[in-house]
């Protein structure tokens, strides 16, 4: 029952541009595949998207299953699920990785349900290890360890898919490190015959409006983030002022986003963006595990909070126990004086 199939990545694209998370997953898939002695393959769907295959090769894919059809552009869930399901049945991959994007999070469960395979959402780490199922007295070799925070982030669970393959997971953008591209890497393109029926094309897109987000937290070197302690929408101006002064970006915790003070584009954490800047300044953020999962790998962390027992201090390098309303202006003044 051991599956020696390859490691697959769902290569998500929008308008012919690959999602960063897909390339991050290709890099991670390379680690997993070398451990298993198998290859990395990508599943690329859309229309006129063949040029993406070259990029996937450079990051380590040795083969790209390419399905091009006008019914695959723009993305809708039913035809994508059908094409990928057909590929799974034909090629029996061992592992299938999805970005935990809005597309990935509606597509992966649809496929997992049909295949009756396990699916673990929002993994923060993936490893290969053996698994002893003591309850059912079965042992498995070289399974995918699917590591994720659970129960509001208060525990970290290692989950194993003991059933049917593929072992499926979703991973948030920014969690896995993107490797360096290598132009000398080449691969093959396997064209897929798209077999869709009326049943999969019942969803009609009548209108589609989108624009690239202008918020780019992932590449920011300095991030100033505000949480519930900021207190109001108006007061986020303080956070923005400090970010602007330091030449950085503004960000927020989920509590501040949920309060409606700032848009979700700015959210750092398990259900937002994962960041690793040189400096992360957390203002009025208590530091739930979900938030820390998105920023704890920052090089330097400053926490400003009135509550000395706030968990954010446990990951901070510098802690300022005080009111952000007085501390932030001090920071702005001090930086302007020195810089």
């Amino acid at each position: 029952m051991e599956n020696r199939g390859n490691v697959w990545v769902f290569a998500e694209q929008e308008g012919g541009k690959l999602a960063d998370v897909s390339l991050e997953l290709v890099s991670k898939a390379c680690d997993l595949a070398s451990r298993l002695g198998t290859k990395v393959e990508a599943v690329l769907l859309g229309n006129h998207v063949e040029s993406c295959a070259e990029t996937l090769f450079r990051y380590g894919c040795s083969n790209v299953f390419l399905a091009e059809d006008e019914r695959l552009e723009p993305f809708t869930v039913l035809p994508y699920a059908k094409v990928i399901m057909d590929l799974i049945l034909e090629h029996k991959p061992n592992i299938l990785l999805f970005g935990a994007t809005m597309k990935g999070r509606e597509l992966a469960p649809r496929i997992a349900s049909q295949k009756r395979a396990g699916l673990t959402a929002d993994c923060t780490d993936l490893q290969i290890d053996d698994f002893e199922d003591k309850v059912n007295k079965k042992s498995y070799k070289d399974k995918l360890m699917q590591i994720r925070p659970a129960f509001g982030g208060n525990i970290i669970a290692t989950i194993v898919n003991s059933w049917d393959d593929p072992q499926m997971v979703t991973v948030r953008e920014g969690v896995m490190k993107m490797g360096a591209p290598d132009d000398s890497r080449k691969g093959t393109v396997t064209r897929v015959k798209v077999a869709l029926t009326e049943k999969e094309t019942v969803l009609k897109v009548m209108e589609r409006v989108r624009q690239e987000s202008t918020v780019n937290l992932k590449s920011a070197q300095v991030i100033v983030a505000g949480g519930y302690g900021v207190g109001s929408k108006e007061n986020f101006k303080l956070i923005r002022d400090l970010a602007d002064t330091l030449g950085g970006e503004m960000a927020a915790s989920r509590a501040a986003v949920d309060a409606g003070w700032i848009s979700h584009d700015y959210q750092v954490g398990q259900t937002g963006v994962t960041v690793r800047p040189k400096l992360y300044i957390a203002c009025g953020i208590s530091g739930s595990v979900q938030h820390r999962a998105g920023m704890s790998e920052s090089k330097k962390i400053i926490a400003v909070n009135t509550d000395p027992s706030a968990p954010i201090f446990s990951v901070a390098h510098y802690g300022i126990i005080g009111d952000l309303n007085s501390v932030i202006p001090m920071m702005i003044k001090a930086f302007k004086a020195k810089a």
Partner: protein
Amino acid sequence: MYKVIVFVKQVPDTKNVTGDAMKPDGTVNRAALPAIFNPEDLNAVELALQLKDRYEDVKVVAATMGPPNAAKVLRDALCMGADEAVLLTDRAFAGSDTLATSYALHCVAKKIGDFDLVLCGRQAIDGDTAQVGPQIAEKLGIPQISYVQEVRELSKEKIVAKRAIEGGYEVLSSPLPALLTVVDANTPRPRNAKRVMKYKKAMGRSEFASTLPADADKASAVAEFEKKYAEKGLLITEYTAAEAGADPARCGLAGSPTKVKQIMSVVLTAGDFKNVEPTEAGVSQLIHELITDHTLG
């Protein structure tokens, strides 16, 4: 007539985790966490009730899976305006992962039958997976529209809904029946005071049975209770796994492909830590340090 099933879930309030939330052995102390109505499921109920307000002859059935006391969220849904409530409860469902959960819920949807729409919140705050909605849709063999913000149009032929996509929105049309997952784009109405007076008494047979003395003739007491409460419109319909037609092999732990290998309590890693005074001098010294080591500037 349109029949709308809304799946709701009672969840531990993971946003308000206190010191007692973890037991000394590192496992979660569920009893220490208050149980609440999953927030985005309230948005799903609201969307269903808006359809009831806008279109004639819409019937809203709130349904959940859980222990007998999960009937609490069904009472809340009735108080908001739902017409009927269904509770799927059975020990056979314990330990269900998302696949087994969606299997069980699809069984109850079929048991309820003749539905035009199935609504779910996008995700539950105890797992944040957002998987159960799409998986129910697949098992029912119906289309799904995820991340719905509003319904633009509903007719016997189709539903037109606006939904969120990355960086924007999309308007999709789908034939019925369809499943929608709903995001927090509306404001759930409060429980209606008049309805609260009536439906606070709504109850399922398990809750009723637990109030009976040990030596009571449970079967006949329950039968009488069900008849009386159904007449008054206060009965929360209950199904066991068998009554919902669920295959035991696909329920609970047996029906769950994902196994938990290991659970670790989160241990906070304290590195080198410097306490900075909240004064001009303290802050100025900190900024100086950060500029000197090229973190800033």
